[in-house]
């Protein structure tokens, strides 16, 4: 087996440089690559374009890279819950491209599947469609308009998994899966941080969500905070 293991987050992000485009896994603060984000903050590279469903909160997740003004452009579907984000966006320091969530996921998928474009009805007739090619297809007896959307081209993908092995095979846990598998497939170089890194042979091949062929670097992260954005509970009884 090919060994994909790197020492730590600093080692994993060693050749990420200014003005690169990064795919960053996670939904809200769930399943985000905490260690790699910290390493990027420390490295202080600038001008990043980040493709990620959300932009973290003020003091966690991608919000940390916004605080240090390392992000030039965000491509996301939903960006609330972040005052610094709002300030930078309104002042024009930060460029923001909002795209539908399913479009975001499928543009990652297309990259991982080697398909340059996809067609989706999401955004037809809205401002999302401006400047895009619209095609009409009849499918299952229904004739509809579809937007042509391009596969992402990103220098790096940074994802977080629950378990991984030294060959780069990944298993995700619960809804921390979200965008991580398709972003893992979409990076030219994919970095995976995992809560538990095991030797090959320790994971059941039938349970692998992302095969190691998509993962170029893997390491066991540390001190996962796993912050919860909204704790909602019910009373017992």
């Amino acid at each position, binding site marked *: 087996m090919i060994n994909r293991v790197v020492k730590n987050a600093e080692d994993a992000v060693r050749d990420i440089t200014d003005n690169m485009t990064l795919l960053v896994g996670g939904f809200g603060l769930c399943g985000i690559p905490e260690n790699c984000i910290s390493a990027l903050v420390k490295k202080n590279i600038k001008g990043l374009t980040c493709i990620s469903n959300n932009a973290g909160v003020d003091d966690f997740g991608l919000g940390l890279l916004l605080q240090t003004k390392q992000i030039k452009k965000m491509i996301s579907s939903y960006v609330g819950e972040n005052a610094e984000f709002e300030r930078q966006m309104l002042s024009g320091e930060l460029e923001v491209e909002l795209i*539908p969530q*399913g479009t975001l996921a*499928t543009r990652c998928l297309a990259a991982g599947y080697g398909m340059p474009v996809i067609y989706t009805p999401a955004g037809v007739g809205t401002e999302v469609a401006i400047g895009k090619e619209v095609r009409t297809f009849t499918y299952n007896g229904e004739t509809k308009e579809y937007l042509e959307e391009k596969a992402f081209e990103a220098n790096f993908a940074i994802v977080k998994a629950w378990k991984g092995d030294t060959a780069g095979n990944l298993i995700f846990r619960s*809804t921390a899966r*979200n965008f991580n598998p398709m972003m893992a497939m979409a990076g030219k170089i994919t970095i995976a941080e995992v809560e538990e890194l095991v030797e090959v042979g320790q994971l059941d091949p039938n349970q692998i969500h992302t095969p190691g062929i998509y993962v170029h670097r893997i390491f066991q992260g540390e001190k996962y905070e796993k912050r*919860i954005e909204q704790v*909602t509970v019910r009373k017992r009884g």
Partner: protein
Amino acid sequence: MLDKNGIAKRIAREVKDGMYVNLGIGIPTLVANYIPAGVNVVLQSENGILGMGPFPFEGEEDADLINAGKQTVTLLDGASIFDSAMSFGMIRAQKVNLTILGAMEVSENGDIANWKIPGKMVKGMGGAMDLVASAKNIIVAMQHVNKAGESKLLPKCELPLTGIRCVKKIVTELAVLDILPQGGFRLLERAPGVSVEQIKNATLGALMIEGEIPEMSI
């Protein structure tokens, strides 16, 4: 006139046994509380859950298990977890039977606006554009008029659109209406204590009223 829970309660009657349902944030989330016993439905959360359960008991929250509103939730027996591409795949392929969501405006031809107010902070459309573009059956929970008393059921939406010609049914504090295939709001039911006249006055888009309009039973 209905309050938020009343609107949710009325919409819950549209949820039929065996449906896969996606509930949006706000009033639609409340619908889950009023689905009658014996009606088995599976709730989809677009971040990757089928079979979403209620909030966890205190102390049992799991940071890895949240819904599309980023709230901690639980899984019911028979639930499944999947990635975001598959989640929107099943939405696009119309496997999800019913989508219930909120709106700021709906037009008489079924256009919906619910994601952006020009001049205000724009948070994004999240999964709403994907849902409205693909779902076969879309029910909108909304206020009939805004705080200034102006109608939100319009000939044409003024706010930036989320999707076009997609809304099938609307439940407001005043009425239940559907959108006719050729366009126009058709009045189906009045909220308790609300007159047809009140609904007429609150609806700016074309309103079709045929025969006696029953008061809704909830």
